[in-house]
């Protein structure tokens, strides 16, 4: 209590008055068929051994494989002085595998994950396929040439390629950055920021996705928020504090890493809506370019709009065809320019899992898209 008194006096003059809010009963979105806790540890170890064997059997060049399994159940209850009572029960299961391949002096790595907001039934079927995929990536890269350096057309792969939109646009739409004018998207509501073919959403209600919850961490029911409609900016992402400042409703994006952290505006599942382009045609129209199939991750400075992405699997595009694999590439650019240069969105939509870090807090997020083409982005390789 002493600490709380200290806080109250230090913050005096900054009080906000309570407003009334009706308690909302959150919908049940996540049916958990098999509670992971009920599954014996031996079964989990067996899956990990299978991943290990599948990866190692992919060829004599596979030097190392490491597989990980994680499960988590988080029950949250939120009460506030406005009379709100809300709760959620979140179970997440995730499998990951990393493969190291070696040929003479060359070493390459491949990584693949399978994760959902779901019970152990996620691993029904053939979870071992991710080991094949990770091994295939690592081995394919052994033949890679150094990545090119310079500006060119870039085709971004489906699924985790959506991290591009997450960094390039999502972070700049979080209302804390917007309200401090520390985002290139501030004061652009309603403006054209992309070609009319682009529609994008943040949707915390997508069944079983990694960033899904019945409510956010302030008790606001999750929702689907259209952030870009036909190329126009339509909404920022709000928690309750920032929503009150802008005199709007929270969009259900107030998230926190744990009880130790304050809520801040965060994405849930962010994606570019599938377009009508055939992914093969998207590539076939490129004379010389770079195909970024997957990323290790990315980072953005919303105030300047400068972003970077580390490419984990990339290829050259020559004469409309995917030719040689490239190693060691980073994509770099500026949000507003790059977003405006998206000229094709593929129909082959997929969602992937990710972890997003902001202000020292880590949150599970979903990212997704079909193949996307950007006319002009800097590829930073070593082949000058």
């Amino acid at each position, binding site marked *: 209590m002493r600490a709380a008194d200290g806080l109250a006096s230090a913050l005096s003059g900054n009080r906000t008055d309570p407003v009334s809010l009706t308690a909302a009963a959150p919908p049940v979105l996540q049916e958990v068929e098999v509670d992971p806790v009920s599954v014996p540890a031996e079964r989990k170890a067996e899956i990990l051994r299978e991943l290990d064997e599948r990866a190692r059997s992919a060829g004599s060049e596979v030097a190392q494989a490491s597989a990980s399994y994680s499960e988590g159940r988080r029950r949250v209850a939120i009460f506030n002085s406005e009379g709100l009572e809300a709760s959620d029960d979140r179970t997440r299961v995730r499998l990951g595998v990393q493969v190291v391949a070696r040929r003479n002096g060359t070493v390459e790595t491949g990584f693949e994950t399978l994760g959902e907001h779901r019970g152990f039934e996620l691993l029904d079927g053939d979870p071992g396929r991710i080991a094949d995929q990770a091994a295939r990536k690592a081995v394919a890269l052994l033949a890679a040439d150094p990545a090119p350096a310079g500006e060119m057309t870039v085709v971004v792969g489906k699924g985790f390629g959506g991290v591009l939109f997450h960094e390039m646009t999502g972070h700049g739409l979080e209302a804390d950055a917007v309200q401090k004018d*520390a985002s290139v998207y501030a004061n652009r509501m309603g403006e054209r920021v992309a070609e009319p073919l682009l529609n994008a959403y943040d949707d915390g209600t997508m069944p079983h996705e990694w960033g899904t919850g019945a409510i956010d961490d302030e008790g606001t029911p999750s929702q689907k928020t259209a952030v870009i409609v036909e190329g126009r900016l339509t909404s920022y992402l709000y928690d309750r504090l920032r929503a009150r400042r802008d005199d709007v409703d929270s969009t259900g994006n107030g998230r926190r890493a744990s009880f130790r952290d*304050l809520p801040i505006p965060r994405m849930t599942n962010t994606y570019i809506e599938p377009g009508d382009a055939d992914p093969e045609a998207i590539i076939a129209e490129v004379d010389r370019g770079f195909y970024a199939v997957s990323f290790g991750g990315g980072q953005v400075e919303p105030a300047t709009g*400068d972003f970077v992405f580390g490419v984990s699997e990339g290829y050259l595009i020559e004469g409309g065809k995917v030719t040689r694999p490239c190693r060691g590439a980073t994509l*770099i650019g500026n949000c507003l320019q790059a977003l405006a240069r998206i000229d094709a969105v593929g129909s082959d939509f997929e969602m992937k899992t990710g972890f997003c870090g902001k202000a020292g807090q880590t949150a599970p997020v979903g990212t997704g898209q079909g193949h996307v083409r950007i006319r002009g982005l800097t590829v930073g390789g070593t082949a*000058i």
Partner: protein
Amino acid sequence: MSELQELAERAAEAATSAGATEAEAWAEGGRSREVRVHAGEVESLTEASGRGVGVRAWIGSRTGYAYDTDLSDTGLAELAEAAVGAARVADEDENSAAPESSGDVPEIPGLRDAGLAATETAKVIQLAKRVERAALDRDERVTAVEEVVYVDEDSTAAIASSRGFSRSFAATVAYSFLQAMATEGAEVQTGLGFGVGRSPGDLDADGIGAEAGDEASSMLGATKPESRSCPAVFSDRVAASFAGFVGGAVSADEVQRGRSPFADRLGEEIAAPQLRIADDGTDPGGLATAPFDGEGIARGRTALLGDGKLLAYLHDSYTARRGGAASTGNAARASYRSPPSVSPSNLMIEPGELSFAELLARAGDGVYITEVAGLHSGVNPVTGRYSVGASGRAIRGGELAEPLREFTIAGDLLGTLAAVQAVGSRARWVPFGGSVRSAPLLVGDLAIGGS
């Protein structure tokens, strides 16, 4: 004996009573506060306190780990059961055993500044506001500060082992950083400033703010450079991130798993002789300094790079046993919630002879790199290859010229280590890439990706 030390002893005993053949308990407790300031007002203020204990239990060569915050006798008994239960289902591992005591562990004076606990929260709020003011006053083009963050911590850690040793230490830390924004027309640039110390009194608010303000305004008008290979000077911040890359690659755990570009290279020439890097867990100025590591073994100094050679790997007791070496006292604990693992303590880049102006003169025409971005995805710790976003200034005729942004630097760790031509003479502590005593580096040849 501190209260936490007694707690650790009770937890270790509870584990042996529950059936562990050996046990070790790590207890931690402390207070921290965090202040965030924007536009002259407190944006958020968090005070936290907590205690917890983590228990590593062995049954023969099987190990289990569990942690809890319920420190009652019942809680400790349940925690002990959980750790022992985990050990029962673990696989046998011949290299797994409770660490032996490293004998006497000398105290390191000056790790805890009692002045921190005595500093009222209102005072540190004033400090954070002053940092912001200093950035804004630096240049009229500095129009806003996104956020000033001030954090301090006063903590105690204790370890007790069934091998018969028990010890504890206390330390304080205070740091502040900010991101300033400079504006000219529609252009916005950002700049970072920071300071670290043992108490708020160690922090130079005006200097921290000025660094961010200067960096932001100096970046206005930045353009994208042409793609090319050229000499580069790494700022001390960038050099620290690079040292952190080296620090990860010398981990014996990664080396033994074949996941490091330094694997099988011990004693070989892998770097330019000008570059000397050591790990030193005993320097009183370092934030990672402690009398002992996460297994209770005395921290020490380990030379990593010298005379161009790879001199050592960093070990905890597990990798030491597996590799037939001795622990270098590099078992780190992120908190009581995780078992120890190999990690650098403070990385020390030995300063060289040249002033910053002389480094620029030696570079002639090239780039001065002040900021790198995307390290977590652009650096591959297994292969050693990297390609990251960068910004900085052009170097022309041996002097700083126009600002540059939106480019990449790329290469591989071994190639860059070999290309270091000189180390600057001015060193300072930098909290990036871990805790690094860093100095600027001149790299003879670096791939720049731009237009």
